[in-house]
């Protein structure tokens, strides 16, 4: 009995930089700064593991105390990058304008020759209008007004070493008694994988007026191409996945914030701030043959998180009720009154918030401090994976919608056997409005029953602090000050009515990685946090 498993991991990153900096100041109101350099990065790692199962003698946990052939594994990797870069700052003092231009050329070992050298430039320009324009400069109410704009094209290799060639592995059950046999790996790799590139443009401004109100605004558009992702392909191709450069994605949005100092006195300070971001992202083109969507995380019936052409990312797809195409109403059986599942999945919504807003309040009164932060996320859907289980067990509030009695399926039609036409259903009831509907596939197998809005307002953090009076420490040789701080996080959450599960959309199923928008019974429940800290200054 007993087992031993040992794992040793070694990782090392070596960075060599050579940099030269040049500076020229005040040449006819121009300042110049130039940095150029080369960089060499080498990443090494080695992982060794060995294990035995079944100890020869009890109590000696050592790999040599074995009765069977030990298991062993090894993984080595090495990657190098050679970078060559330059960066120029040019400032024109008269306009308060700064131009910043960068360029970098990387040569990486991870990609195939011919695709492994890439150049990425960027440029941005900022002009302080409150310095450049005398009318603004002389206006006492405008303290700062700055406009800025930038454009960049950033390259990135998001791959592990040796990913560019498919591998061959020992088949299941091998090696067997000194005999080896192999199977062709299940993952294909696109020939000539390229680095990812993100082209970003942005414009914006910063301001401060009346010495009280400050803020900023930015509008941006990003386009990313050649993202390197493993995608799932039809099993009948003989393979299960393909590592490839996929598509073109576009994200556009705004970021804005305003801060107002309402009261500024020695013993009382009060400030509020608000911020808002809007992000509208979209997959313009997946760029994989004739594939219109591919699955990132799905359940058995195909519902789940997808990346799809022309839709926001990530997109939730799921099953729906079979509907009458003319009226859009659910078709029910003329005898049983039950709807049917349309197993062709359709788009349900995006699972990442489009709107994010935050409000914060800062108050300082004498020795007391109060900070409050509230946030809003909205414009997205989530799949309540616990819903089908609640419906099955009868624990879900939805199941008492019709008092578990017979009911006419709302907003439904049935095919009149006499005329062959769809007529509004007012009298065909579901015979068993209890387990006959709520536990059935016609309820639980339909994703749209469990798609809810992910919107919420949340009181994310409240903290109250008290600084002990300085006079207490006048006689102390060790302590210079002390503060007590009470903090609470995730205190109140407000969700729309349709979120009957009242679950916190920020907590998603961990098992499916970062694909937001899925909550299940298997995840950690949302947590509320209270704490107190005492800090002492020496």
């Amino acid at each position, binding site marked *: 009995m007993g087992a031993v498993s040992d794992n040793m991991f070694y990782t090392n990153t070596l960075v060599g930089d*050579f940099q*030269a900096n040049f500076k020229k100041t005040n040449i006819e109101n121009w300042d110049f700064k130039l940095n150029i350099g*080369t960089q060499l990065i080498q990443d090494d790692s080695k992982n060794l593991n060995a294990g035995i199962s079944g100890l020869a003698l009890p109590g000696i946990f050592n790999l040599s105390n074995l009765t069977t052939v030990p298991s062993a594994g090894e993984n080595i990797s*090495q990657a190098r990058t050679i970078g060559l870069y330059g960066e120029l700052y040019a400032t024109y003092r008269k306009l308060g304008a700064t131009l910043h231009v960068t360029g970098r050329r990387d040569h990486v070992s991870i990609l195939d020759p011919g695709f492994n050298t890439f150049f990425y430039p960027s440029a941005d320009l900022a002009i302080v209008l409150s310095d450049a324009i005398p009318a603004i400069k002389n206006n006492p109410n405008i303290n700062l007004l700055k406009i800025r704009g930038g454009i960049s094209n950033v390259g990135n290799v998001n791959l592990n070493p040796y990913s560019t060639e498919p591998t061959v592995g020992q088949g*299941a059950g091998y090696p067997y008694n000194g005999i080896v*046999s*192999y*199977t062709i790996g299940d993952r294909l790799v*696109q020939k000539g994988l390229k680095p990812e590139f993100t082209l970003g443009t942005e414009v914006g401004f910063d301001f401060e007026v009346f010495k009280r109100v400050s803020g900023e605004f930015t509008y941006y558009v990003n386009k990313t191409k050649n993202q390197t992702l493993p995608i799932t392909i039809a099993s009948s191709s003989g393979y299960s996945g393909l590592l490839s450069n996929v598509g073109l994605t576009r994200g556009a949005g705004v970021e804005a914030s305003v801060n107002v100092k309402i009261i500024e006195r020695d013993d009382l300070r009060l400030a509020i701030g608000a911020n808002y971001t809007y992000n509208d992202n979209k997959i313009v083109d997946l760029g994989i043959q004739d594939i219109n969507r591919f699955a990132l995380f799905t359940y058995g019936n195909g519902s789940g998180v997808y990346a799809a052409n022309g839709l926001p990312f990530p997109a939730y797809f799921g099953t729906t009720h079979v509907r009458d195409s003319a009226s859009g109403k659910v078709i029910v059986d003329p005898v049983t009154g039950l709807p049917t599942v349309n197993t062709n999945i359709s788009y349900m919504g995006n699972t990442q918030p489009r709107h994010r807003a935050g409000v914060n309040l800062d108050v300082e009164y004498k020795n007391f401090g109060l900070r409050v932060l509230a946030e809003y996320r909205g414009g997205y859907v989530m799949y309540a994976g616990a819903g089908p289980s609640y419906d099955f067990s009868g624990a879900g509030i939805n199941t008492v919608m019709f008092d578990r009695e017979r009911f006419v399926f709302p907003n439904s039609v049935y095919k009149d056997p006499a005329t062959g036409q769809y007529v509004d259903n007012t009298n065909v009831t579901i015979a068993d409005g209890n387990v006959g509907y709520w536990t059935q596939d016609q309820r639980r197998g339909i994703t749209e029953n469990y798609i809810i809005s992910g919107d919420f307002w949340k009181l994310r953090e409240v903290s109250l602090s008290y600084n002990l009076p300085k006079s207490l420490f006048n006689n102390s040789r060790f302590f210079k000050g002390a503060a007590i701080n009470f903090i609470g996080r995730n205190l109140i959450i407000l969700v729309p009515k349709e979120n009957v599960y009242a679950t916190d959309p920020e907590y998603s199923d961990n098992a499916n990685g970062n694909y937001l928008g899925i909550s299940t019974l298997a995840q950690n429940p949302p947590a509320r946090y209270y704490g107190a800290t005492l800090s002492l200054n020496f």
Partner: protein
Amino acid sequence: MNTNKNRIYVLLMLTSIVVFSASCKKFMDINKNPNSPTGTVEESFLLGKAIVAWSRTYPAADSYGGEMSGSIANPGGVSGFAALINYNFGPGDYGFWWGLYDNITDLNAIIARGNADESYKNYAGIARIIKAVHFQALVDAYNNVPYSAANKGIENMTLSMIMALIFIKISLH
């Protein structure tokens, strides 16, 4: 500003660039996988696994047939969630769809080698028989299945039902 110093820096940098680019090719050619074989292996090494995979799939096929026809009861008791009860089969259930197409990839490699190389024709003969039995099983279970468009890897990654008179085709191959 010390111009001489600057000149030395620039010189050093240029030297390092030249040194790097000269030694680049070998220095950067380190992406050969040291952990597992890549590309393909000698086709004879594939046959053993293909036979084993075949024998590993068929107990599952036995359960599939038995449970579907009701001659085997579900040993897990009553479970409303099983694929079998819901008729909600995925590609991985019973190792049937995916397991067989996966194995056909290896069989095709052996057959292709047999077509090109006379000394491999015995390997290819065995592979053909297993492939025929695999398609027989697939057709038994699913009726029409991808055949001539299947196992094309990167050339056909979407499921398309190009179905031919399958047994005739296999015997002609």
